[in-house]
């Protein structure tokens, strides 16, 4: 029972992290058709921002450090949109994808050259890696926080998308950008908002990724975002509820594999999971909630 509870918490928090990242990918994809391969490097950026503030300026107070992490990723996402993605907006989708790859390589190399290949520890996260004991169950604080933050972030996002004009415009733009412009809503604003939200969600994830690893390195964003891609594909790429469901499914699947697989086969965890994803996509190529592309008529 305790074991089950611990593992469920494990699955929820991991799934939550994937969901946050997959949502960020899906929001940007839905409004501008861009597959943002630099999403992981936004996490890296946030990690270094926190490292620089902690080590460089000696600020160790988490109440200051955590907002720095989140905010830096939001600003960085908006900055990337302005300088890298806006100029190629009218171009074919492959151009956007290659631009994202370019941005990713650039960020990784800037980190390599100016900070170095060695992982730098961010020492201030102790309270996150402590445990709480509920009855006889010990649960890491980071898992509780991560699950709670994911739930709150998703709830806020739902309210934002349903209640605000710009949120409605974002949902509408996922299908039909030109008609949204006919409403007098600036496409620029919709896209900038999408990046800001994507950055905000990635910023939250940054804090948790960092809490687990305790250190930053130039490639720290790669694995989480690779998993987020898989999550988004499972859920149906571009679908926001799909991204959340895909994230949770992937998190649960990974933890289940860890529990079920004998130790000698633990290294094959991802192989089993990717095989399952492959089978899923054979049955439902559009993912769980994705829609089949329709090649309809003019109207």
């Amino acid at each position, binding site marked *: 029972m305790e074991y089950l509870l611990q593992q469920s918490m494990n699955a929820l928090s991991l799934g939550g992290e994937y969901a946050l990242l997959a949502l960020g990918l899906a929001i940007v994809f839905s409004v501008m058709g861009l597959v943002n391969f630099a999403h992981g490097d936004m996490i890296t950026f946030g990690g270094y921002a926190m490292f620089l503030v902690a080590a460089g300026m000696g600020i160790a107070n988490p109440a200051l450090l955590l907002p720095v992490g989140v905010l830096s990723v939001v600003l960085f996402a908006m900055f990337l949109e302005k300088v890298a993605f806006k100029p190629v907006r009218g171009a074919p989708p492959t151009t956007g994808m290659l631009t994202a790859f370019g941005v990713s390589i650039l960020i990784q190399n800037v980190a390599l050259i100016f900070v170095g290949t060695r992982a730098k520890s961010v020492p201030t996260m102790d309270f996150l890696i402590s445990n709480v004991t509920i009855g006889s169950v010990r649960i890491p604080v980071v898992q509780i926080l991560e699950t709670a933050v994911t739930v709150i972030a998703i709830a806020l996002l739902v309210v934002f998308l349903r209640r605000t*004009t710009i949120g409605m*415009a974002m949902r*509408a733009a*996922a299908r039909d950008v030109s008609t949204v*412009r*006919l409403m*007098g*809503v600036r496409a620029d604003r919709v896209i900038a908002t999408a990046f800001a939200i994507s950055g905000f969600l990635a910023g939250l994830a940054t804090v948790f990724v960092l809490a687990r690893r305790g250190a930053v390195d130039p490639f720290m964003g790669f694995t989480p975002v690779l998993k987020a891609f898989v999550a988004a594909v499972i859920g149906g790429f571009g679908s926001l509820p799909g991204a959340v469901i895909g994230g949770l499914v992937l998190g649960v699947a990974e933890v289940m594999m860890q529990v079920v697989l004998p130790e000698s086969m633990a290294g094959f965890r991802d192989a089993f999971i990717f095989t399952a994803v492959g089978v899923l996509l054979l049955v439902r190529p559009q993912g769980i909630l994705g829609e089949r592309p329709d090649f309809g008529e003019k*109207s």
Partner: protein
Amino acid sequence: MFKAENVSVSYGPIRAVRDVSLTVGEGEIVTLLGPNGAGKSSLISAIIGLVPKTGGRIAFRDEDVTVLGTEALVCRGMTVTPEGRRVFAELTVAENLRLGAATRGDPDGIAEDTEKFLEMFPILRRRFHSAAKYLSGGEQQMLAISRSLMSRPRFLMLDEPSLGLAPRIVDQIFEFLIQLRTWGVTMLVVEQNAGEVLEFADRAYVLASGAMQFSGTAEDLRQSGGVMEMYLGLEGH
């Protein structure tokens, strides 16, 4: 109040619209007719800035608006009800109307206008909180026009509002347009079928193969059997 001069639109080497000029006076209903593929939608899209113009000038209310983008034009009081209605399928009727008023900051006025269209089209009230994709074609067209009007445009361009609708519904839509004129909205109605729209339009243009073939009063067009037959497949009266 609206004037397009020598507007051209090209898609790569294909010139879809060639040096087309068109004026619409305050309070007028003008119709732009022409067969499928004549360039009508391209012209409208170019006017409202959704596709680039390769030449020509646009003026609206004594202001040169040639270089303005779609959003700026909508803020100045021009808008288009697009071909095929293009309601936001996943959004509710309420949200569609709300987005139509995206340029406005007066919640009371928005609520008042919403009420006005719900009064006008009671079906929209019954479907107020369901997704627009569940509406019939005619209902979607009513929603699309109401959504355009939520921005309180002075000049409304409607791209084939009768397309794919049953005759009874078309009558209802056209009656609404006639009523709209009394609200002080100037209109350019794009149609493939000349028949009914000529009964209430003041003036008419005929576009074919990307070039303007006729311009005159609706009465003139009805009388000129040749133009009607050649471009619109109708017998003149």
